[in-house]
């Protein structure tokens, strides 16, 4: 009964906070589901039956991949070769290496007669390197697949960690709002177990909702992403691109990883909840002041006040807010590295000359993990910026109220906050870009890549800066009006 009542009423009172938490949960779940689907997708080699053949030390070998045992029998009439069929591959060992081209031609003829309309045999079919009898190409394939999986897992881990930080921040913000409720309930006699159950239940409901919305959202984004690229005719390219594949197990794993992130977040928050001390309910004092008595004092000090207050804001900013600037800068740096990687993968080939739509589609599709990871990282950093700004304005509400009552002008107070926020915006964005580019140069030079600068790339950077500034400014205005301005008019009659 107690829990039902609290949830029912909380839904009205804290709806906004629930929506905010839900948004961050959904963002995390959709990111996890997108990356899981990417990880599970198989890779399209244009449906060609490949004839990798190569000559590293001019010893010859040929392999026909992706054929059935029945199809393999058709090749038995080719002379001068030994054949071994295993695991969908037919390996040819040439008895006479001078016969390489002849054997290859015969294989192509059979392949074309068998798969004329199904498979395309192109000259761009990748070759294999046979080196001391070892099929290096196969190893490369394995490395590539494993690399994609490991890379995806690394992205998932990084983005989940960022997601968990955002979840902790947004949840702490909600708990701050409920501190007084928790104190009152503790004074009445709620046990730790009941508090745990109350908030854990809430957290689970929000998680379930985010699973219902987030996983289909991530899957939907992946589907649209891959399908759009699949619809473009890419038969003229030899690019490898992922094909949408849905495995129920991976969705369950996604839900499980998401739940682990939510659970860890909750455990961190629970510690905060249990630290809330009921005794403060009575210790809290209301700062009393007489506005009329002091009004005008700060009007006299106005010429110096702006500089004074801005300096105070800067000097008194807590270690927590400084570490948040570092966090935002780190995520921006990560986005910059990924943005450069995307630009390298897509823009490298097409920086000169005409861009073929099919090749562009294949490149976008193949780098969709990077593209989406960049987008998710940017979304997370924007969410953190908004939460951070909200906290700043809320924590300064009381000071603003007193300063206003002492006679400080509202516009001056606003401009002080604006100046302070602008400083934080500049430092976090500049250091994020700086560290991001330093890391990019370091990584790219170690793998002999060069940074490509083109028009769309510059536009994306500008959009990014404008976006960050807009979120900083918008949140500051919103929360100044909500916390400082309304308090001013209510409490001090301004």
């Amino acid at each position, binding site marked *: *009964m*107690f829990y039902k009542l609290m949830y029912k*009423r909380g839904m009205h009172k804290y709806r906004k906070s629930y929506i905010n938490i839900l948004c961050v949960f959904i963002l995390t779940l959709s990111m996890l589901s997108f990356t899981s689907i990417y990880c599970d997708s198989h890779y399209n080699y244009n449906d060609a039956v490949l004839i990798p053949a190569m000559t590293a030390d001019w010893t010859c070998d040929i392999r026909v991949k992706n054929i059935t045992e029945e199809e393999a029998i058709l090749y038995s009439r080719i002379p001068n070769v030994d054949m071994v069929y295993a695991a969908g591959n037919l390996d040819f060992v040439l008895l006479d290496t001078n016969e390489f081209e002849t054997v290859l031609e015969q294989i192509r003829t059979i392949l074309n007669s068998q798969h004329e309309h199904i498979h395309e045999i192109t000259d761009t079919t990748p070759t294999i390197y046979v080196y001391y009898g070892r099929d290096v190409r196969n190893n490369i394939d394995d490395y590539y697949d494993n690399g994609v999986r490991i890379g995806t897992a690394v992205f998932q881990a990084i983005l989940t960690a960022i997601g968990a930080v955002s979840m902790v921040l947004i949840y702490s913000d909600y708990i701050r709002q409920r501190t007084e*409720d928790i104190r009152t309930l503790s004074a*009445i*006699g709620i046990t730790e177990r009941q508090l745990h159950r109350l908030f854990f239940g809430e957290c689970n409901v929000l998680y379930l909702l985010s699973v219902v919305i987030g996983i289909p959202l991530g899957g939907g984004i992946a589907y649209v992403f891959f399908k759009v690229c699949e619809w473009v005719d890419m038969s003229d390219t030899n690019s490898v691109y992922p094909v949408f594949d849905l495995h129920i197990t991976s969705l369950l794993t996604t839900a499980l990883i998401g739940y682990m992130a939510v659970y860890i977040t909750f455990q961190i928050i629970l510690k905060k909840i249990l630290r809330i001390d*009921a*005794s403060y309910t*009575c*210790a809290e004092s209301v700062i009393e002041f007489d506005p009329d008595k002091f009004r005008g004092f700060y009007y006299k000090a106005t010429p110096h006040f702006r500089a004074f207050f801005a300096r105070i804001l800067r000097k008194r900013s807590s270690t927590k807010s400084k570490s948040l600037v570092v966090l935002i800068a780190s995520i921006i740096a990560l986005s910059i590295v990924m943005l450069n990687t995307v630009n390298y993968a897509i823009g490298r080939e097409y920086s000169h000359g005409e861009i073929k739509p099919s090749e562009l589609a294949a490149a976008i599709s193949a780098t969709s993990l990077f593209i989406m990871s960049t987008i998710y990282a940017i979304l997370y950093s924007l969410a953190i910026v908004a939460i951070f700004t909200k906290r700043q304005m809320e924590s300064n509400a009381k000071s603003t109220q007193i300063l206003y009552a002492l006679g400080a002008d509202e516009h001056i107070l606003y401009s002080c906050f604006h100046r302070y926020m602008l400083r934080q915006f500049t430092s976090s964005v500049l250091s994020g870009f700086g560290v991001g580019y330093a890391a990019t140069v370091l990584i790219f030079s170690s793998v002999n890549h060069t940074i490509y600068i083109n028009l769309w790339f510059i536009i994306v950077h500008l959009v990014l800066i404008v976006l960050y500034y807009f979120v900083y400014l918008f949140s500051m205005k919103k929360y100044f009006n909500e916390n400082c301005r309304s308090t001013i008019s209510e409490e001090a009659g301004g």
Partner: protein
Amino acid sequence: MALLEIKHIRKEFVSGTRTVQALKDITLTIEKGEMVAITGPSGAGKSTLLQICAGLMRPTKGNICLDGKDLYALNDDKLAEFRRNHISYILQHFNLLPMLTAHENIAIPSLLNDVKPDETVLREITDTLGITERLEHFPAELSGGEQQRVGIARSLINNPACIFADEPTGNLDGGTTKDVMDLFCRLNEAGKTIVIVTHDPEVARYCHREITIVDGMIR
């Protein structure tokens, strides 16, 4: 018969390298059915003593026996349950849950016991307090006096042995203060033990006994 026994209570707060002694060896007994006022200047330790007596803050040394039970021998969960069923605590700032109606706020201590409040008892309490008409209103829609009455009703719903009130009239005007104190007197006449922390000599005058605390000690 002693309801509350406070034995050699000391409370120290550590702030950085500094240790502040809020209470210095306080020993006190409050009889069943007594109405006691704890007075003293700001920072004397009145509220700290009240919170320790009400089981909200563990003392650095000493123990508190309420109705023969050593409060701080209990673990946190047991202490919370004991507080819920045997002690009630009334606050200066009313501390009602803003999202619940007056009725729901009053019912919360019972609901925490996983039982529905006895509606007859609830009506009796609210009739006595004169807030029956306001039960479906939210705290924001009530006046200060009404909010305090709801707080008092909440504190009575589980029929506690002892009521602790920290500046219960601190946020009320003169007329409402008198009403609330008359109410406390009626509750005391009905057999409730009441301990009130106050700055106001007028409020202290309603009580049987006045204990003055100065600098963490009983004067």
